[in-house]
């Protein structure tokens, strides 16, 4: 087991390096190969060629791509030094670089934004798991009933309606028309837990609706399949109460694929829920990334991508380990 985890960790690191290399190529090498000069994006409109060249040197874009990449990797492991004018700034490891636009270190920016994204993702996850799984189970057990059809219609709407529609409508109604929730800026949990929940609630529900729909459908399909399994019949034949049959024997199997998807979904969300964070004005990782893309702040884009990849890789690893906990057949083979 320890061996297995170690092996997976090594793979994970290799994967992250590969992701960083590909991201680097996409954002640094391809525009250059296509003839665009990235340095020109970071100068004022009246900049002279000399200014452009100076910026190119400052950002390190004058170096061959492999040296730029090497510096980036080295920064993560050992930190880097940046000339900021009157002095030298040390960006300590893990140094994900130095923003081209705002001259801030990327890593603290990511860490600063993380609590918002985590708050959003976890809150939404609780809601969608609760409602998605419950909805799916009820749907499956009352197959063909009005409850089932209603749940499936909501699920279909949930997956079909984009966040920027549901999110805007929800804010319009609940914040501005009925004044049920407060608008305004995000507040930290530790400063004001009630305000934090108040501000996030609509975002949680909106985001959860999108995911709950998928979970409802998945749970329903899985539950229907499981309920026809022989071991469920066995459980009934033992004289177990239906509640135990469904809640214990069937759910255990239903949860296996749910856990997989859940891990990946949550991992993906921790890398930033771009649309939700934008629509609900939440200053999380997703907003950071969309802002960075808008102004072509390459180091932040790179940092956010790696951050996201990190969470997905970790989520994958955890899911695999959890799998072993859930399914003894995986554990022992």
């Amino acid at each position, binding site marked *: 087991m320890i061996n297995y985890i170690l092996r997976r960790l090594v793979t994970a690191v290799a994967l992250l390096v590969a992701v960083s290399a590909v991201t680097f190529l996409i954002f640094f090498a391809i525009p250059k190969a296509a003839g665009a000069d990235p340095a020109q*994006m970071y100068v004022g*409109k009246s900049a002279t060629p000399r*200014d*452009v060249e100076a910026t190119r040197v400052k950002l390190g874009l004058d170096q061959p791509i492999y040296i730029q990449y090497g510096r980036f990797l080295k920064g993560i492991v050992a930190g880097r030094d940046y000339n*900021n004018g*009157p002095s030298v700034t040390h960006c300590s490891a893990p140094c994900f670089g130095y923003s081209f636009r705002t001259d801030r270190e990327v890593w603290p920016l990511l860490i600063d934004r993380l609590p918002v994204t985590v708050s959003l993702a976890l809150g939404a996850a609780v809601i969608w798991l609760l409602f998605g799984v419950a909805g799916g189970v009820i749907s499956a057990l009352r197959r063909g009933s009005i409850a089932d059809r209603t749940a499936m219609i909501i699920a279909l709407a949930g997956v079909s309606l984009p966040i920027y529609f549901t999110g805007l409508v929800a804010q319009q109604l609940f914040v501005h028309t009925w004044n049920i929730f407060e*608008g305004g800026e995000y507040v930290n949990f530790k400063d004001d837990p009630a305000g934090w929940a108040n501000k996030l609630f609509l975002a949680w529900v909106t985001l959860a609706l999108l995911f709950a729909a998928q979970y409802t459908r998945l749970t329903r399909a899985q539950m229907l399949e499981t309920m026809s399994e022989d071991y469920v019949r066995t459980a009934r034949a033992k004289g177990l109460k239906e509640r135990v049959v469904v809640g214990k024997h069937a759910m255990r199997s239903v949860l296996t694929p749910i856990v997989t998807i859940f891990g990946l979904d949550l991992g993906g969300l921790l890398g930033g829920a771009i649309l939700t964070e934008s629509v609900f*004005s939440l200053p999380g990782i997703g907003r950071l990334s969309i*802002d960075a893309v808008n102004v072509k702040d390459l180091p932040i884009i790179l940092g956010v991508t790696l951050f996201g990849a990190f969470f997905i890789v970790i989520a994958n690893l955890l899911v695999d380990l959890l799998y072993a906990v859930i399914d003894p057949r995986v554990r022992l083979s």
Partner: protein
Amino acid sequence: MRMRTGALVAGSAAIALVLSACGSGGDDKKPSTGESTAGVTGFNAATKGVVNPSDKKGGTLKLVNHSDADSWDPVRAYYAWVWNFQKGYYVRTLLTNASKPGEDGLKLEPDLAEKLPEITDGGKTYTFKLKAGVKFEDGSPITSKDIKYGIERVFAQDILSGGPTYIVDVLDQDQKYPGPYKDTDPDKLGLKSIQTPDDTTIVFKLKEPLSDFNYLLAMPGAGPVQKAKDTGDKYGDKPVSTGPYKFQSFDPGKKLTLVRNENWDPKTDTIRKALPDQIDLTIGTAVEEIDNQLLAGDVDIDTAQTGVQQGAQPKILLEADKKANADTPTTGFIRYFSINTKVPPFDNIHCRKAVQYATDKVTMQTARGGADAGGDIAVNMLPPNIAGHDPALDPYNTKSGKPQIDKAKEELAACGKKDGFDTVIATRNAGKEPKTAEALQAALKNVGINARLDPTDASLYFRSTIGAPSNTHAKGYGLMMAGWGADFPTGYGFLSILVDGRTISQSGNNNYAELNNSEVNSLIDKAKAETDPKKAADIWGQINKVVMDEAVMVPFVYDKALNYRNPRLTNVFVTEYYGMYDFASLGVTK
């Protein structure tokens, strides 16, 4: 100035009113400057005078913006709203645009300087005396050396990129001054073209006369910076204030809070009202949510000042009580497209004129949002707020915006292209521009000109895509969509960079048509040296006429923005200098 609409609308003013015939209806009246004490109300009131005049201090001004500043470092900022903000709250310069409604707002007034400069040596030497009692937020006095150091920072483009560099072009004078960080002078004051004989005197030595030099000194990048407090490219995180407010806290991309700067002496400042006790700028709110909050009265203004979203437009325009709190100032931004003189058949002036006549400015105006939210139809290359503008200058008779097919066909015949020809339209792939380009494409089709659209990414559009002549030639870009606003509201600030044939460069070129007309070039030199603003304006009018006659640019809209102001705001008016509310004057009632 080109970038996303409004993202980078720097400088430039707006007299919607002079051009009232062109669309905005009977609401507009010539602003009578000086009527501010009485106050005005209703739709577009803030473009005419001062709404809710008041001297009442206190309260918190709640500002909001979807995006953070490009930089809070005055040397590195280029967004117009950031300049308006910096100049209004924490950056004082020798001269500053007057906080007044109407045309008076285009004038510069002494700010840190005691009075307007003494100009000697045939317009080549500018001498300023500093006011007594002006201080930084830490209480230390502002000296001429701090101003010199601040301007020297503009030269450090290797570290402090992003802002305007006009002042470098004027003051470097072949010194190749590297900026203070690489300055070998122990005091880091090695720039020879600025002299500081004593702490209250500063002298600028120009190589040749430049009548608009004062405007360069009014940019926030020319404000004072203490050498000891300079943190290089981190200065924007906490710039040292010289104005009535200072940074209390700044959470990048989230929130900026300004509080009163106790070391700002109102007796030294005739420009800023400094009414609120605190100024909050919330950053990162979704654009639709900003409109909701504005209409709900939760926030005071959107500092982007680029107009509400489409969804909110009817809510404002169709509800009288909301409409009364809205204004549609012209932003000083012009929408036009360039005709490439180096790409056949546009090397022939008749083919260029054919396009002038064939263009349907009405459909292009519609694509930009119509007369209310888009703007008025443009007929020449100097927008109404720039001295020298002449609404009668309309050589192709395009005031109605309708295409003139017969005239276009005549010109095509004269060009030897009776049956039309093929060409390419370069456009950005975002915003309203693709639709606008499609409208142009459709109009050209009617006279047999088959134009193919080539949409490209916006980020490098101006610097590389159409800003590199070799690229425009290679891609065969006959027509290139563009937009422009002045960094300061003079003919020089607006037009020279677009039409001076000697500034054509291999990248970052702004003269997309590659017009190199000797008459234009010599007129520009003449205008730059002309110290009488009236005469200079006349010369810019002549340049405008030559450029229009050359048919190298087709202006189609002078931009407008539908902005909303919270009714609790006091002292609201549009400064024509920026084409947006004057941030420095705003106050709030509780």
